[in-house]
């Protein structure tokens, strides 16, 4: 009997670079995807800032790998990324400012995503 992959929801609530939590969350998402889990990433609160595209020279400027690349890798590995519209609008983060392939969702939809894909959750 084949086992359905476990569903993991990684909720990112911290902004990029100033604190390692956003990285840490994306690493968990990627490591889990690479081991066959069904992973959804939800960008909420300050986590929406991680989606802004054009993050340049992070290695040279901040000695940190690019979070934008991590997001892209997650999408390439088959992960789904949803963005809380309320958090984004408060902060002035528009879909056109962001990496492609993200789904901007209202809170009702985010609640459904959690219910459908949050069998297990981590929040960073």
């Amino acid at each position, binding site marked *: 009997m084949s086992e359905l992959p*476990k569903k*993991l929801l990684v909720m990112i609530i*911290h902004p990029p670079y100033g*604190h*390692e*939590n956003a990285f*840490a969350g994306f*690493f*968990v998402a990627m*490591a*889990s995807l690479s*081991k066959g*889990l069904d992973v959804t990433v939800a960008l909420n609160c300050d986590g929406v800032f991680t989606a802004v595209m054009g993050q340049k020279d992070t290695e040279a400027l901040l000695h940190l790998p690019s979070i934008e690349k991590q997001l892209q890798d997650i999408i390439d590995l088959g992960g789904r990324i949803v963005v809380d519209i309320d958090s984004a609008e408060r902060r002035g983060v528009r879909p056109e400012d962001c990496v492609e392939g993200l789904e901007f969702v209202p809170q009702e939809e985010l609640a459904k995503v959690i219910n459908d894909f949050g069998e*297990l*959750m*981590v*929040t*960073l």
Partner: protein
Amino acid sequence: MKTLTILLLGAPYSSQYPEFAVKLAEAALDKGHKVNIFLYGDGVHAGMKGQTPKAFYNIEEGLRAISKRGATVLACSRCSAARGYVDGEFDDAAQRYPSSKMIDEIRIFSLYGFVDFIRESDKIITLGGV
């Protein structure tokens, strides 16, 4: 018996989170559940040897005690190395990175250790972070 995994992001003494982690672990062990703790980011400091807090709950003792009761505690190798805990290459036989600074009950291991925890868990609790 079910499996509870706790992801601990916060360092000891600067917040209550490590103490919450130990207390949740104790409560779960009391009920006969399997308990895993993954120390991530600043959470790895919870495992440092030689903690002598004055008037705080001793996290080192708490982690030693739950480990003796069967909890599995891993510390992220990347985070541990960054913070000066890792003394050498991965020891395949012992399945851990060597460390003179981390308590022996805690194995320094890659993030894939947390992924293995996730796969066997019924529930995960995240504690700490800014």
